[in-house]
């Protein structure tokens, strides 16, 4: 059931709701407001998928990779655990706690593992990340009936088939506390809802929720395949997570430059830029043209330090940003922000292709980059 792609096209077409909420001082809050917010946009989903990503939820295991697994059956579980034991030192293994919830049926076996790559197999940190990516690819491609849906540190993805608010209650998200939360309600029209196909999509610390359809998916996927990313999920959103991982983690691009690859400025804009900027943006498009995301999208990309909102360059999907004190919001619609934060006044609509970046304060202050430590670094349209 997990792995079955009922329709053979390699991606799904979906309308969706997305919502992200972050405390930029790293103070934690439960998943309750997330459930409230995403339920408010019920019109945008159809009960075939919902999910959440939360950062800061496993402080006791903060230095370990946490894999969230879906299994079709005990056989897949046994095979996967054998593989994991060979590759990692397994510091913890447990059932992901759930409660029965109306609207959520037939869940797969849900387990999580806290893992340390074996030292003889991986040496430094970068290699460890690559090692984990390869392990995820191995399980998803090679082990029938097993699927890794979360593989970062001190974070986790919770997702499945159902309305997002039901999925949130099913996974008892009111009992977790994190400082970045993102949520997604799904309206797939092409693939039958399957648990692995719900958003967020995750690789290492990167999570992506996505509203839209990637017209360029075919080439995005083929380009990423050259770098060892194998798309297994039958959905276009997967390529965004891998693209971000490639550009930021492996190639070392900044968030802004990564955003300019995914939603590139038009050539006529580039031609008008000052020389240094023009040279950079020309080279970005020349080199990474195959990663341009074409077609309508609004996305929230997150990692342990940032929450980034982005729309396609001609802004064919909605995205609203908001802030109130230490809280930063990114949403498909404005209404749920007011629902969870009745004193928010500062909301705005970013331009197409302009990233909204909410940065964790401690990181901004401690980083070696030359930027001054700001409470919030925001590029894009200033509040109206």
């Amino acid at each position, binding site marked *: 059931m997990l792995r079955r792609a009922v329709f*053979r*096209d*390699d*991606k799904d*077409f*979906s*309308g969706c709701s997305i919502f992200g909420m972050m405390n930029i001082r790293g103070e934690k809050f439960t998943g309750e407001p997330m459930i409230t917010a995403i339920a408010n946009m019920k019109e945008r989903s159809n009960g075939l998928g919902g999910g959440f990503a939360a950062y800061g939820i496993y402080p006791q295991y903060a230095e370990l990779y946490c894999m969230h697994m879906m299994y079709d059956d005990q056989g897949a579980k046994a095979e996967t655990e054998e593989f994991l034991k060979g590759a990692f030192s397994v510091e913890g293994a447990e059932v992901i706690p759930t409660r029965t919830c109306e609207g959520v049926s037939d869940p797969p076996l849900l387990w999580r593992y806290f893992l340390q790559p074996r030292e003889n197999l991986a040496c430094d940190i970068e290699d460890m990340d690559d090692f984990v990516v390869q392990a995820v690819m191995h399980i998803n491609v090679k082990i029938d009936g097993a699927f890794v849906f979360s593989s970062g540190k001190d974070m986790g993805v919770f997702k499945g088939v159902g309305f997002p608010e039901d999925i949130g209650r099913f996974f008892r998200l009111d009992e977790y506390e994190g400082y970045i939360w993102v949520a997604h309600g799904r309206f797939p*029209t*092409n693939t039958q809802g399957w648990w692995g196909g719900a958003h967020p999509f995750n690789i290492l610390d990167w999570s992506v929720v996505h509203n*839209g*359809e990637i*017209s*360029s*998916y*075919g*080439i995005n996927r*083929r*380009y990423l*395949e*050259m*770098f060892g990313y194998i798309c297994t999920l039958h959905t276009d959103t997967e390529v965004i997570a891998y693209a971000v991982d490639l550009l930021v983690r*492996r*190639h*070392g*691009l*900044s968030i*802004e*430059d990564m955003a300019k690859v995914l939603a*590139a400025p*038009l*050539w*006529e804009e580039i031609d008008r830029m000052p020389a*240094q*900027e023009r*040279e*950079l943006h020309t*080279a*970005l*498009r*020349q*080199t*990474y*043209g*195959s990663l*341009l995301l*074409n*077609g*309508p999208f609004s996305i929230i990309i997150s990692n342990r330090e940032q929450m980034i909102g982005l729309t396609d*360059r*001609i802004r*064919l999907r909605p995205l609203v940003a908001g802030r109130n004190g230490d809280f930063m919001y990114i949403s498909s619609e404005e209404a749920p922000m007011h629902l969870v934060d009745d004193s928010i006044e500062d909301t705005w609509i970013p331009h197409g292709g302009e990233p909204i970046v909410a940065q964790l304060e401690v990181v901004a202050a401690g980083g070696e980059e*030359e930027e001054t430590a700001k409470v919030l670094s925001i590029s894009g349209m200033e509040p109206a």
Partner: protein
Amino acid sequence: MKSYILPQFLIHRDDYRCIRCEVCVRQCAFDVHWYDEEEDAVFADESKCVGCLRCATLCPTNALVVQHNPTQIPPNANWTREVLHNIYKQAETGGVLLTGMGCDKDYPIYWDRMVLDASQVTNPSIDPLREPMELRTYLGAKPDALQVGRKGGKPSLKTRLTPQLRLETPIMFSAISYGAISYNACESLARAATEAGTYYNTGEGGLHRNLYKYGDHTICQVASGRFGVHADYLEVAAALEIKIGQGAKPGIGGHLPGEKVSAEISRTRMIPKGTDALSPAPHHDIYSIEDLAQLIYALKEATHWEKPVSVKIAAVHNSAAIASGMVRAGADIIVLDGIRGGTGAAPTMIRDNVGIPIELALAAVDDRLRQEGIRNRASIVVAGGIRSSADVVKAIALGADAVYIGTAALVAMGCHVCQKCYTGKCNWGIATQDPYLSKRLNPDVGARRLVNLLNAWSHEIMEMLGGMGINAIESLRGNRLRLRGVGLTQEELDILGIKHAGT
């Protein structure tokens, strides 16, 4: 010797319409028409007619009808008219059969077995008349990754890209040499490429000095004969192309007969006037892949590493592996020329039987370079049988960065594909060095017709892209999900890397 070949065409002249203006007589370089003063009538020797329709097109009263000769040999699926004619010809001359243009055989045209996608409901299509739609394409090697540093508080590029060719539309004019076509045709191509923001290719005939001013839009070819290759020629070009093979005649060289080597061509090609210009089959300094690498680096070195170097091969069975070797040998651009690629002259048997369809070669090469993780290290350009903007879109979706058009460009200038380029008697003033004929092609008009064609195709490409919900050509490049096959076998679908329509 009495020829047993029946005229291919019959010419019907409507005597009532004919005003005896003798346009047809003057226009036909094959001397089909003549005027008889005593009878005040125009007659035709149809055995000489090649069917180029110059006479019918220019006849002011539409008095001429040129039609296929209905008198034919008895129907036979095996011993066709064409087969018999070839045998008669060879029995009469004892020579190798010659022809011009591209293969006209009934091999599958895969462009016509592929259909394109469009957006409906879940993804808005984009109207190119209202929204930006980008066709700009850069040809050349791209790095695996970019390094960005900071300068003056702003991000600044640290990786230096190797030279790139900037195309405003992903269509260039194929290599056609001065010698194969007239000076006016060359000038038309050069001016059109310049105006349209793309490139034309000199072919192996060198570059006439008068055309140096279009150098920024000129790809200068270095072929086995090395005709007209000298320092200025390399210096003036925007890019250099090593021609290994040609789709119309893979594995064989070329032969420009001495009668075409006029004073101007002699000067341009750097060979004595009136001597045959023979291109050897292989480059005699390239007998292996490492030899190719040496020539690539020699050309880069000679031009101060300021120009991309392209390598052109005919599409053959093993193209994928060869292309991989070419990329590793340092080619910035790989050109694949398919079995339907054109020529000024080729042995008929070679043209019609050697090579493979470009669609299959393209798919195989793109796949192979991706499997090896080196697709970014060279651009792929395909040539040979691109007939319309739809063919361009399908080629790009299969994995090409850009296409070369040769025959289509000649047709835009008036060519009627009569396949008699090798005779030098082109009535349209294109494939000829006869000043009486070549002055028929006015470069002002030729350039205008070519630019019009590029503009028209570009508009159509934008419409197709917009329909797919794509607003930049790079999002279509290699995006095979937007293609579906119609009436193809599983094996063909697998090679093309596409699904069948309905799935």
